[in-house]
């Protein structure tokens, strides 16, 4: 299958996120929680409209791709996540950008690193 030309591709937005929790969470656990949260809040149809996809996740920070009209909905769905892999956690959106590079450079590399052990109960 050929890649669609850029004019025909669906527009996307990239959410730079960080996970605040007592101990580190794995990529698989985060993906499971993201889909559980969106599925619970919007159902299958709403989830597919959001088009969430975890692109990169390392050291509690990552980039999530979503549809460009669904940024607020995606943010709300991520805010409803309260446990990841059985432990309490917060998914905090650091910022939204139009490119992966923008999201990474602006929000992940420049962000002050929040050490999870320092904000645990």
């Amino acid at each position, binding site marked *: 299958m050929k890649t669609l030309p850029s004019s025909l591709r669906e527009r996307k937005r990239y959410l730079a996120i960080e996970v605040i929790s007592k101990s580190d969470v794995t990529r698989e656990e985060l993906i499971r929680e993201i889909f559980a949260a969106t599925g619970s809040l919007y159902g299958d149809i709403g989830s597919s409209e959001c088009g969430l996809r975890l692109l990169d996740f390392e050291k509690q920070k990552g980039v999530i791709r979503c549809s460009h009209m669904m940024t607020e909905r995606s*943010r709300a769905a991520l*805010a409803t996540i*309260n446990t990841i892999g059985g432990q*309490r956690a917060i998914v*905090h959106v650091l910022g939204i950008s139009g490119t992966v590079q923008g999201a990474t450079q602006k929000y992940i590399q420049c962000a002050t690193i929040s050490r999870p052990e*320092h*904000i645990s*109960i």
Partner: protein
Amino acid sequence: MVEGYYDLCIRCLPEDDIAMERLVSLAKHLGFNGAGIMQATNNSKGPTLKSRSFNAYFDLANGIEIYEDNPAKLHSHLVRYDPKVNFVMVRGGTDKLDRAAVETTYTDILSLPFGIKGSGLDHVIARSASDRGIALEFDVGSLIRYRGGKRVHTITELEQRLMLARKFKVHMVLTSGARSIYDMRGPRELIALAGLFGMTKEEAIKAMTVTPAAILKKRRLPGGFIMKGVELANERIYSEE
């Protein structure tokens, strides 16, 4: 006072100064400029109303949430706690209690529980609250904590309250209602969650900035005031005369 986003209803009381520091650092990291720590009167230990150190970069306010089933006793609670805290919130429930709460001048915020049959915000309470400048709490924490049917009912109730608040021009306060630091969410997340029940971005921003700041300003005495009605006169004026 620091201008910016406020989460007025954090319902967890940190045990020590270290836990408090963690809470403040997390709130700052999430993007808040101020927060209100709520203590409930039905707490088994009773509320500890010690004053907290005022941080120039973060506005930490003390609040009290009054739980009282008997509307006749509500007034005595309000008179007792009013001078000791920065703001007073009354937890509603029954119609009589809600009406008693919005008929006093001591109440700053009215908080209504979810899922209680035959209770909630009606046009009478909304009008009274609007007349007396009492704000209505929109706790989006229930959208975070609940799943399934309970969340569906919560969204429906919040939609109904928003409709009445808009119609009667009741002040709104958007809060996370956090029971622990892991229930806290950033201002942009709270705006997105408020959008789920139809609150616009402008309304949500006002409910986290202007309204909380006005509530806190009402009780804080401006510079020069020693107590209500007593201002320290400028000595220079008298010396010149």
